[in-house]
């Protein structure tokens, strides 16, 4: 499967035109839509592209929680099902200016809350590798569109692991840079302190290329970081000899997984093999121990903070200034009705939780304590980053689940293995998932999380590991449609 650079070469050598690439992409998008449901909207007319950037003429998909002027932006929720924005997100604007060609707006878990790809209002997204399995979420359609080979890259958002988890399940690269590296202006807010913009690609180099276009300070986002004046694509081939990695014993040691299923054990074995490969190409890799209590706190702390912020962030969805107008005899009834009809049960549950967490009498015990835990975890990470350049761990404890999988993996241990990537959101660390082979014919991933602000080094490390592993540009040979 071709990467961005491959396509760039083809375009520059006039082997293909951008119109042909666009048409090929929308043909595929339509062809796969019924079965895999990657898109809310497939663009029917190519936008004019004028630029000489690496992305000029390259098709891509954008998660439907980015504001696109004049193009439906639903966040896969009924409350925004007809919402056409009047302004464009900075990320979308930058891609447009770079000449990248939008192919479609991708399905997500409703309002980006969820990790299954099953809760969008237009239906479930299926895993390209096996249609009875999930692709994961919330950036489900974005992951599927790249995994299906419709587009060489796509844009997602990541609040807990919403890019990095579906990337693992889809056998593609998923990267979210340091918090603030890419402007969030125009990304429909889920949990502002945890939300990141990031990308799906077929290789680490492409992730660097896309991030190089997206990054930069934005006067519309006060949390955006000043430019560093380096191109990540230029630093990812640097020698990594002597760079130090660590993994957490309490997350990957098989002795903790006596009752685990075969797939989980295989994932842990594959991880160990990858560690050996890392060592063989010059990395120093060490095992560190972190208090299990702290690790167990990641998921509850994440849920507590994200639900609280989500409740507040989504309070603008009342059907008053925009969105479907509710019915009722008073203004409260009208808003109540719009929100009752506009959100699914799962979303309402999160809002109620969030409201409860923020209530004056609960805030100290729930919200503030979760924030303290977040701080302790980030401090611990930063302490480790004094010695190590990055953390490496399996991206998931299992392969992509089936739609009818019983949730039998809710043991504490499994919760840690499945949810540790939220650490990257807690600290705003650059974090990337790359393919790590197959288990039971399904792709699995490993995650590399680096020091804050050091996106270049994190991509550099991931690129070298990707070279050593050889799982680049994975795609299933044929899809039955």
């Amino acid at each position, binding site marked *: 499967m071709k990467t961005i650079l491959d396509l760039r070469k083809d375009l520059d050598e006039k082997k293909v035109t951008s119109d042909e690439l666009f048409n090929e992409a929308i043909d595929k998008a339509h062809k796969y839509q019924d079965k895999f449901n990657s898109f809310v909207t497939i663009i029917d007319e190519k936008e004019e592209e004028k630029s000489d950037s690496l992305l000029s003429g390259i098709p891509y998909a954008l998660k439907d929680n980015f*504001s696109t002027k004049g193009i439906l932006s639903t966040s896969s929720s009924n409350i925004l099902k007809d919402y056409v924005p009047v302004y464009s997100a900075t990320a979308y604007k930058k891609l447009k200016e770079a000449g990248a060609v939008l192919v479609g707006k991708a399905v997500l878990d409703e309002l980006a809350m969820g990790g299954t790809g099953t809760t969008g209002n237009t239906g479930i997204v299926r895993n390209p590798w096996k249609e009875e399995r999930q692709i994961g979420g919330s950036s489900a359609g974005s992951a599927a569109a790249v995994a299906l080979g419709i587009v060489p890259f796509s844009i997602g958002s990541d609040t807990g692991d919403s890019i990095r988890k579906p990337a693992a399940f889809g056998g593609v690269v998923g990267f979210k840079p340091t918090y603030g590296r890419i402007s969030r*202006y125009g990304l429909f807010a889920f949990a502002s302190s945890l939300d990141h913009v990031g990308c799906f690609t077929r290789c680490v180099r492409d992730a660097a290329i896309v991030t190089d276009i997206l990054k930069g300070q934005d*006067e519309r986002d006060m949390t955006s970081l000043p430019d560093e004046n380096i191109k990540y694509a230029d630093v990812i081939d640097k020698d990594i000899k002597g760079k130090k990695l660590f993994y957490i014993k309490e997350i990957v040691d098989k002795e903790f997984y006596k009752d685990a299923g075969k797939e989980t054990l295989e994932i842990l074995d594959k991880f160990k093999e990858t560690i050996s490969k890392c060592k063989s190409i010059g990395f120093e890799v060490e095992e560190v121990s972190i208090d299990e209590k702290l690790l167990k706190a990641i998921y509850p702390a994440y849920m507590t903070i994200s639900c609280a912020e989500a409740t507040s962030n989504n*309070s603008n969805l009342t059907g008053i200034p925009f969105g479907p107008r509710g019915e009722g005899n008073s203004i409260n009834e009208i808003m109540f009705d719009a929100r009752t009809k506009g959100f699914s049960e799962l979303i309402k549950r999160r809002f109620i939780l969030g409201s409860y967490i923020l209530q004056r009498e609960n805030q100290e015990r729930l919200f503030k304590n979760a924030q303290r835990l977040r701080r302790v975890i980030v401090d611990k990470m930063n302490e480790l980053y004094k010695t190590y350049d990055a953390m490496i761990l399996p991206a998931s404890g299992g392969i992509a689940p089936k739609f009818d999988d019983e949730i039998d993996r809710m043991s504490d241990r499994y919760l840690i293995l499945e949810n540790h990537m939220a650490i990257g959101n807690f600290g705003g660390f650059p974090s990337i998932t790359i393919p790590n082979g197959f288990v039971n014919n399904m792709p699995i991933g490993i995650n590399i999380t680096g020091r804050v602000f050091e996106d270049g080094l994190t991509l550099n490390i991931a690129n070298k590991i990707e070279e050593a592993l050889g799982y680049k540009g994975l795609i299933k040979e044929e899809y039955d449609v």
Partner: protein
Amino acid sequence: MYKVVIGLEVHCEVKTNSKNFSYAKNTYSEYPNENVDTVDIGLPGVLPIANKGAFEKSLKMALALNCKTPDIVMFDRKNYYYPDLPKGYQITQETKPVGVNGYVMINVGGEDKKIYINNIHLEEDTASLDHFGTYSLIDYNRAGVPLLETVTEPCINSAEEALTFLETLKGIFLYTDVSEARTDRGQMRCDVNVNLKNEADEYITPKVEMKNINSFNNVKLAIESEVKRQIECLENGNTSELIQETRRFDEQTLKTYRMRSKADAVDYKYYIEPNIPPIKIDDELIKNIKSEIPMLQFERIEKYMKDYGLSRYDSEILVKDKKVSDYFEETIKLGVNAKSSSNFITTIILGYLNKNELSIDTIYLTPKMLVELINMVDAGEISSKQSKEVFFKCVEDKKEPKTVVKELGLTQITDDKTIRDIAVKLLDERPDLIEDHRKGKNTFDYFVGQIMKQTRGKANPTLTRDIINEEMNKR
């Protein structure tokens, strides 16, 4: 005896180019929804951008109110649903406001009093709603306008004190140029908390809040009405009517009505706004802002009374408008009798400005020219009556006083010989009147009048009288 306890929460819009958290213009507009940015209507995906000018002006006000300022400024979210609040939360300051623990000096009936400020914080205004029977309209022009809330301690003890405090506060807003503070445009609004204490300084009624009172006079009326109600309830044993609650003041009936009790109070679920990183406030910034704060009204009044010997009444008139006060001070600097300058400004100039709805900085007469004019009077070159005429001519024709005096030929005759020659001639002509004068009849004024007539009013009156007196006594 009851002691009235009042606490005020005063909202005032800050004068800035753009809104508090968006790039939309912050300006008064007759047309609804003209000054609106994506942020102001809370569209999905928008982010607030803190307005540097707004928080620097807020810091200025905090310093003017003698508040402690924080080392970092932070913002919080106040969450509640209402159609005038498009985001579903208001960005305000709870954790780290721009100022805490300050005070303002006021003067009520000649007595100085310190009003303590609990805190002053920067937030954003809501949209405005217009209700029409079966429907309501929303105007987002006001949504997101920077709003400074000044919260006093419950240390105000009468409606008059409250009113004086509000006027003093308004004066500070104007003097520091933080706000235009126009109540007629809803730029300054007030929440009032009222309850009563007994002689032992114990609270005997619960706190009642009256929200969004839009004029100073209504604040006074609302306090008076609510105090009266609370006293009546106490004295009639009607204590069930005395609960901690929010009441609405009705301008028509001049009474307050129950809106909601404390039990129905909204939990605003405050938490730190994650999209605005904490803003560091360094000493340099505070120093710079402090240096921009002019001497305020209270201090100016003290100075005028003490240093220039003016009355409180005149001082208060002079400081009402900072431009007038600055103008006055400029004349003093140029060397003029303070009382003469004060008299000229408060009587002649202010009268003219009010009548023509002009501002003192737009008239042609500069402080320097006024000093020249007053000095001409003091030197006896022109009469004070003439000086008034000269002033009008100056501002109407845009000419300097000296030029006007010359053109009107107003320069007084102060030359002894000229006047004496006329006087001697007159006295020679009417010895009969000199005789009458000696007999006690007043013929003196006849001679003064004749001299004025012959000099077309230019003879210096004092000198004229002196000369007539001397010449009569010689005979």
